């Protein structure tokens, strides 16, 4: 296992720049998740670490050694592909042992490594099958098995669960987390699914437009998103945003309502800000206090209820566990608890 350092990493195809100076320090044994919408550069970054894409400028170090010019095979990393990329003409056992065979490792060593990985993943009865004869979930396991048979310096995952159905995805997510707990392997995991990011990561790297937006633990990103992008991307349903102006310790919403803030930011009165609050933090005020919002749609998810509202004519969502919300009339009152408010400036960065 090893640490990975990435410094001022840039990537461009001709004149099109897709990564703009990424800096990232990954500790030995850490589980890092790169998250962002498609086209944000997360997969490119992963493929550059793997050596599948050339580095335009900047530096990648694995275990302290510069690997920019190293061929993928010399970087000693393992990767799980979105398509699994299992070799169709090899059996499961051959797929898993291919990397070891390429390294001319003794037959019995290979045998025991494959057996160990197979039993860990529950693949023992499938070892002689071809990938074609496996289900999606089984293929995914084989792809994982292929990665863990050798002890690489790092594991790279490129959206490994996106081809599975919801149930399997949940199950494999837990297994990946458990496996990381066992192996303590440095891992970099790419996904566009923020739940995967939240549940798996030691630290999340949120990316957008080829730029790292925020690096931090899942709860840091959830509690204190660094900018509008991260605030909107992390959490489901997404955070509500309301345009507002600052007014001496409070913010004034479009309809003139004053919302009190917890702390006093360094802002001048009248400055435009964006107020953010997560749907699960909005309080429904049945006593007639709070702002009035029209109920447009009620979505029960079983666990909770999502209310689609119109607040000052803008879409607004609430997530609540209170079944009473199912019976809400045409209009309800909402209150914003001060400790859950997020404030962003016109530059989209967090103020408070």
């Amino acid at each position: 296992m090893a640490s990975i350092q990435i410094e001022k990493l840039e990537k461009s195809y001709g004149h099109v720049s897709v990564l703009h100076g990424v800096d990232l320090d990954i500790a030995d044994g850490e589980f890092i998740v790169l998250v962002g919408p498609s086209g944000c550069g997360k997969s490119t970054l992963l493929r550059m670490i793997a050596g599948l894409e050339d580095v335009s400028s900047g530096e990648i170090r694995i275990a302290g050694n510069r690997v920019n010019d190293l061929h993928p095979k010399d970087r000693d990393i393992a990767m799980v592909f979105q398509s699994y990329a299992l070799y169709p003409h090899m059996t499961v056992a051959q797929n898993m042992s291919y990397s070891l065979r390429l390294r001319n490792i003794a037959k019995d060593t290979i045998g025991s490594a494959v057996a160990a990985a197979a039993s860990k993943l529950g693949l023992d009865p499938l070892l002689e099958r071809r990938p074609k004869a496996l289900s999606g979930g089984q293929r995914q396991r084989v792809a994982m098995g292929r990665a863990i048979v050798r002890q690489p310096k790092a594991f790279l995952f490129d959206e490994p669960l996106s081809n599975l159905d919801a149930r399997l995805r949940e199950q494999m997510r837990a297994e990946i987390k458990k496996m990381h707990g066992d192996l303590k392997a440095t891992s970099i995991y790419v996904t566009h699914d923020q739940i995967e990011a939240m549940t798996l990561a030691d630290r999340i790297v949120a990316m957008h437009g080829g730029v790292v937006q925020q690096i931090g633990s899942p709860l840091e990103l959830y509690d204190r998103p660094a900018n509008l992008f991260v605030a909107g991307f992390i959490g489901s349903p997404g955070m509500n945003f309301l345009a507002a102006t600052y007014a001496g310790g409070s913010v004034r919403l479009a309809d003139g309502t004053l919302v009190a803030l917890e702390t006093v930011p360094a802002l001048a009165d009248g400055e435009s800000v964006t107020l953010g609050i997560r749907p699960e933090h909005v309080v429904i005020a049945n006593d007639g206090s709070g702002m009035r919002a029209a109920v447009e749609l009620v979505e029960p998810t079983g666990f909770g209820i999502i209310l689609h509202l119109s607040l000052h004519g803008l879409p607004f969502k609430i997530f609540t566990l209170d079944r009473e919300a199912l019976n809400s009339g045409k209009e309800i009152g909402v209150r914003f608890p001060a400790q859950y408010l997020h404030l962003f400036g016109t530059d989209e960065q967090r103020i408070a």
Partner: protein
Amino acid sequence: MKRSVLPTIAHRLAILCYIAFALFPLFWLLKVSVTPNDLLYSEGVRLWPSRTTWDHYAFVLQHSAFPTFFKNSVIVAASTAVVVTICASLSGYALSRFSFRAKYLIVALMLLTQMFPLVMLVAPIFKILSPLGLTNSLTGLVIVYTAFNVPFATFLMQSFFDGIPKDLEEAAMIDGATKFIAFRQIILPLTLPGIAATLGFVFTAAWSELLFALMLINGNSAATFPVGLLTFVSKFSVDFGQMMAAGVMALIPAALFFLLIQRYLVQGLTAGAVKG
């Protein structure tokens, strides 16, 4: 679901017409080749003679150099097929997997080779090969046929490679393979249908080639089947039975090879067609 049977009947009838049109000439070849000489004219338009004979085949095999021609043709066609497939796999792979500036130049060059009558090359090629001692030799023929068939075979192989996901090579490289090992151990085994199609296509083409075989070879020792058949035809131009017996024998290897590979051919072209 109950549908009208009329379209189905029309469909089968149309198919039958095509089969009849495709096979009738070959059937006629076979029919004349087994018709005894005395019935040839009296039963000229009958679909099958009242008596059949293998005499024509026996004569062709015993009284001519056809066994030699046959052997030469097999050697030339098989070697050409193998060499072309190796070259075309490599160049098809390059066109499919690398993006480099000269790629379009190479494609243009290969297209150009399909644009002019090959007759134009006979004299220059003869001039180039003759000081090398490659005229009147099977090796010379193999070299010429290989070059002629490489462009199309390259495009064919490229379309097969295009159908194989790039992920597989990347996975292999991460597993510790060099690009060439990934090509040999992962990609090539997956293109076996493509390789079969290319082998069959080139074998058939090389088996059939007449012009250069005629021009580069003189004498029977290195002549191929088409040359032999043509000289036979001009020499014995009255004995239709024997000519057609020779024709049937010329047809069999090419037809067999083609029947084996034709479904891969459609597959390969489909793989390419997906990409547009």
